[in-house]
């Protein structure tokens, strides 16, 4: 190996990277707000007994789970303006595209959480004379949410990573800033390594929390 590293390019160009980082965080945060709220709504729709609520929700979930995020993002950026004649700024478009994807994945996480509540608890609610409302709000949802939290957090980190895809449609996020900087400075090794490490450092603390939560839940289930 005869490559000489020159990490000084990073020091002089931290500005663009930092701006890109802010955009990435904004994208991830916005997508998570959409995903956590509307994901729950879509989950309820997908579990509804009325077919005209259930069917569209299920179709939505399956479609977003079974196609690449890249094509979702590209489709959203190119086709939505043509189809609906609406134009948003790139960051809003990015949040919406990523948010739709996260809504589908989080709806599944909520559903799995609800289904993991033991059947006996439904029976117990009947035996205790709890009506559907009390059963849902006080018994099922609290447990379902606790079951779903690790998966919701994992999905949250995943969307942070998937947000790098918006660079392909020229949204100026961290990935895009890195790509530009690598081309301008002819120093892809240093720049891409730095960008990778920044993404990693953002994900690491959350994934550690997830590991901790899962371990605690395993322990509480065992005995």
């Amino acid at each position, binding site marked *: *190996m*005869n*490559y000489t590293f020159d990490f000084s390019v990073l020091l002089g160009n931290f500005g663009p990277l930092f701006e890109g980082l802010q955009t990435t965080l904004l994208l991830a945060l916005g997508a998570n707000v959409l995903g956590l709220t509307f994901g729950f709504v879509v989950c309820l729709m997908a579990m509804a007994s009325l077919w005209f609520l259930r069917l569209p929700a299920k179709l939505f979930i*399956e*479609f977003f*789970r*079974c*196609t*690449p*995020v*890249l*094509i*979702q993002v*590209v*489709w959203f950026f*190119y*086709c939505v303006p*043509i*189809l609906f*004649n609406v134009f948003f700024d790139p960051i809003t478009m990015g949040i919406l595209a990523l948010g739709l994807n996260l809504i589908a994945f989080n709806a599944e996480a909520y559903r799995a959480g609800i289904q993991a509540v033991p059947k006996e608890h439904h029976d117990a609610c009947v035996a205790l004379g709890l009506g559907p409302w009390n059963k849902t709000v006080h018994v099922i949802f609290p447990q379902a949410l606790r079951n779903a939290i690790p998966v919701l957090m994992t999905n949250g*980190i995943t969307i942070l*990573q*998937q*947000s*790098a*895809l918006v*660079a*392909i449609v020229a949204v100026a996020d961290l*990935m895009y800033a*890195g*790509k530009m900087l*690598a081309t301008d400075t002819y120093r*892809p*090794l240093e720049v*891409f*390594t730095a*960008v*990778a490490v920044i*993404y*990693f450092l953002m*994900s*690491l603390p959350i*994934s550690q929390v997830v590991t901790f939560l899962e371990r605690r839940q395993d322990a509480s289930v065992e005995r």
Partner: protein
Amino acid sequence: MNMSFEFLRVFSYWDVLLNGLGITLLFTIGAAIVGTLLGFVISLMRVAPSRFIKWPARLYVEFFRGTPMLIQLFWIFFCLPLILGQDIPPYVSVMLSMVLFMAAITSETFRGSLKSISGEQHDACVALGLNFRVKAINVIFPQALLRSIPPLMSNVVSLFKESALISSVGIADLMFVSSNISSSTGRPVEFLTAAAVIYFVVAFPATRLVDLIEKRFLIRFA
């Protein structure tokens, strides 16, 4: 809405799109096979007693699961040739990055199923006087492998979806072909939708199959 769509035009580009799908499947299947084997080795490294084996494996998995696949792909595509001091053909670097991605998520799958085998099974092995080799080969691994099948198939579906990224470094997969046609014809709605539907038609039955195997088949053996 005052525009017209010509979805029929998709059919005149049908074989080009199918060629793209062929490339996508070729890379996915190749990387799935190699990545699964590598992932199995990594999962064994992660339960090894020595920390000199355990820690590099852990760092590798955490890093590949904690960074976007796009940056992994770019790093291997643009940076690895600089470090090695020689050119790497694009299909090799793309394949390498898909294999490393698959191995990272698959090693977690194997580790999870190794861990999921209850303590009572280990007790039974002691009570029957099984030595380490027999316990590992005849009791623990077969069960872990059986339990890994559904998540492993899910991993392959994930890999299939993530493979769309290789279009960004110029590999002529389904994503690349469809976005090329949509810009040359100026018809993104038709061709991007068609590509999305093709991805869906492959991935959706695969996910159903995973569910089926989990519910019908594995309940008997694991």
